[in-house]
């Protein structure tokens, strides 16, 4: 005999909202209690609830590139340790990219939630730590050639056992990070967030019962899967292809093409990267979880945003990423930029592939770089080491009905840049001289690409070590459906007392103009970062003349471009 359980929509909606708001509150806890601006300001983390089998029950809308990585990291952790290894009060830490994590700076914490002696859920968060003991401060060394140079690798290990710190593991971590006090503060924020989520789940289960929680969360995954399949069925069946490239890897001056073939049919998607370039020498490689995450991210942009964000969303997707390639590199290739640079490229490629199939939903390429600019040294005010990962925004691609966003952190991150005031007060290294949008950097189109920006800052301490890992410095963000390309970015330095801006290649002999590590700057040196614009959507000749006039008035488009590109009569 079979039984059928009927779920009422109100209960399902209540549980979905409860779990999602719990994940959001986890993030707020981290934002407000962590020590680093990459938590407080940039929000470079994600917060998720899983069932005991590692199925994602809910997530909050923080960092999309971590959607896939936390799913794979948690699954690996549960499988490697085994459910029987978890005790009440345990917290497991894991950041090893070759065991499912995204890249070394992203640390995942996982805590089992017990009810009446059995595990009924896991709460987890993943966050980008601002210092990880890599070859240069802040990690993301733009010229790393092995994952060992990218920071301390931690396979799944308990940092709390039955509620008590595992001191031996903490000693290893804190003795390997340059900023141990900040590392500890950020980890405590993550653990506080898990404790809060555990209490919330206990409240839900206490109020409604365990059977209700398990049944409704299972049904929510089934609903999400049905709705995602229906969305995919609305896309015309077929195979859609697109090619793009990562322009260099920091070590060799060559491009790494990425080939994507999307096969859509029967409510399923096969994203096949066969034919993509072999893995890079430098740190632009994505591991499997990052590539999968980028595909998920693209389809979450293209489909109904009210679908519950749980495991069911991801079941219709198969991602084929050949091992040994730039989209699924093999150990011990460096991977730092896979998550910050290759991930947004892949997400954009899905839009490029589908531009003719669903023109009403896609966007042109965004600026496509997280613009990581990292620095560290010793604070002369306190004699304490510091390290910081600074994001910049980029222009986003135009889409039907709307111009692209100006200077928003790229599509894989959903992060924020470091405000000028925070930048200057938290770190003694720099004074911000200017920060502005760049006219004509948005790709022309019926719907214009968003503008890139420019930041100039001056070194105010005797010495600071800087590193970078930026893209779209050589190849323009592409437009779609007749739209034009956005402007490329750039990175320059002007030494104290010298009048001209020079590239880091010219001044320091780095291989790449935008991917390097460990460059020492001194008092009075200046840095200029130019962030790429977004591609345009549709033929610029179709742009509303009033919109062109408004762009000129606001300084987004020059009078000359208005005349020559858009045919404006003024």
């Amino acid at each position, binding site marked *: 005999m079979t039984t059928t359980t009927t779920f009422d929509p109100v209960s399902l909606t209540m549980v979905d909202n409860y779990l999602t708001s719990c994940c959001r509150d986890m993030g707020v806890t981290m934002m407000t209690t962590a020590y680093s601006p990459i938590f407080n300001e940039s929000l470079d983390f994600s917060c998720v609830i899983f069932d005991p089998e590692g199925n994602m029950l809910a997530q909050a809308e923080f960092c999309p590139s971590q959607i896939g990585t936390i799913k*794979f990291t948690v*699954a*690996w952790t549960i*499988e*490697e340790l085994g459910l029987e290894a978890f005790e009440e009060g345990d917290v497991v830490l894991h950041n090893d990219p*070759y*065991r*499912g994590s995204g890249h070394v700076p992203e640390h995942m914490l996982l805590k089992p939630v017990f009810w009446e002696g059995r595990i009924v859920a896991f709460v987890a968060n993943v966050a980008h730590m601002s210092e990880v003991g890599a070859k240069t401060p802040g990690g993301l060394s733009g010229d790393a050639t092995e994952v060992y140079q990218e920071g301390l690798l931690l*396979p799944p290990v308990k940092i709390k056992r039955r509620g008590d710190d595992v001191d031996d593991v903490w000693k290893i971590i804190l003795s390997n990070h340059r900023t141990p006090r900040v590392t500890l503060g950020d980890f405590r924020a993550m653990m506080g967030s898990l404790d809060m989520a555990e209490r919330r789940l206990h409240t839900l289960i206490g109020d409604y019962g365990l059977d209700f929680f398990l049944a409704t969360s299972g049904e929510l995954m089934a609903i999400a899967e049905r709705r995602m399949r229906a969305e995919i069925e609305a896309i015309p069946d077929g195979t859609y292809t697109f090619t793009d*490239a990562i322009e260099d890897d920091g070590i060799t001056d*060559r*491009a*790494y*093409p990425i*080939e994507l073939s999307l*096969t859509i049919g029967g409510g399923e998607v*096969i994203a096949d990267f*066969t*034919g*993509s*370039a*072999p*893995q890079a020498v430098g740190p632009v490689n994505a591991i*499997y979880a990052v590539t*999968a995450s980028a595909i998920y991210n693209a389809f979450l942009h293209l489909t109904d945003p009210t679908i519950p964000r749980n495991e069911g969303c991801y079941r219709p997707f*198969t*991602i*084929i*990423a*050949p*091992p*040994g*390639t730039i989209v*699924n590199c093999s*150990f*011990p290739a460096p991977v730092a930029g896979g998550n910050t640079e290759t991930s947004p490229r892949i997400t954009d490629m899905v839009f490029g592939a589908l531009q003719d199939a669903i023109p009403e939903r896609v966007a042109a390429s965004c600026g496509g770089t997280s613009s990581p600019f990292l620095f560290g040294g010793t604070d002369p005010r306190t004699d304490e080491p510091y390290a910081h990962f600074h994001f910049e925004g980029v222009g986003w691609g135009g889409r039907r009905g709307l111009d692209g966003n100006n200077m928003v952190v790229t599509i894989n991150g959903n992060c924020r840049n470091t405000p000028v005031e925070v930048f200057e007060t938290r770190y003694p290294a720099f004074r911000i001289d200017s920060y502005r949008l760049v006219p004509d950097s948005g790709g022309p189109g019926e719907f214009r690409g968003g503008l890139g920006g420019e930041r100039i800052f001056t070194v105010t301490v005797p010495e600071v070590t800087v590193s970078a890992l930026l893209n779209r410095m050589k190849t323009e963000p592409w437009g779609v459906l007749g739209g034009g390309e956005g402007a490329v970015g750039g990175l320059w330095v002007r030494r104290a007392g010298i009048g001209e801006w020079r590239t880091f290649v010219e001044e320091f002999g780095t291989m790449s103009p935008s991917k390097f590590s460990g460059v020492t700057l001194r008092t009075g040196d200046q840095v200029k970062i130019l962030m790429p614009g977004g591609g345009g959507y549709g033929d610029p000749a179709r742009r509303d003349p009033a919109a062109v006039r408004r762009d000129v008035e606001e300084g987004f488009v020059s009078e000359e471009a208005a005349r020559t590109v858009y045919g404006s009569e003024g």
Partner: protein
Amino acid sequence: MGAWKAGEISYLKANRAACALCGHPIAIRYWGAEVEGVEQTFCSPEHERLYHDYWLPRYGEQSHGAKEASDGP
């Protein structure tokens, strides 16, 4: 006919098994199935099915991975 099997986590070996279809690294549990007389490792029975229905018709019996990659410009 395939079957679920269990490998081992080793901290002494650098090379890790990956799904013959999708390339996803295998932690412990995998679906082992014989293809053309050779046992292949898959994430799941579903990926074995796709190997036959999607992979082989497109790429034949070539092994996939870096061998398939272009050298770039």
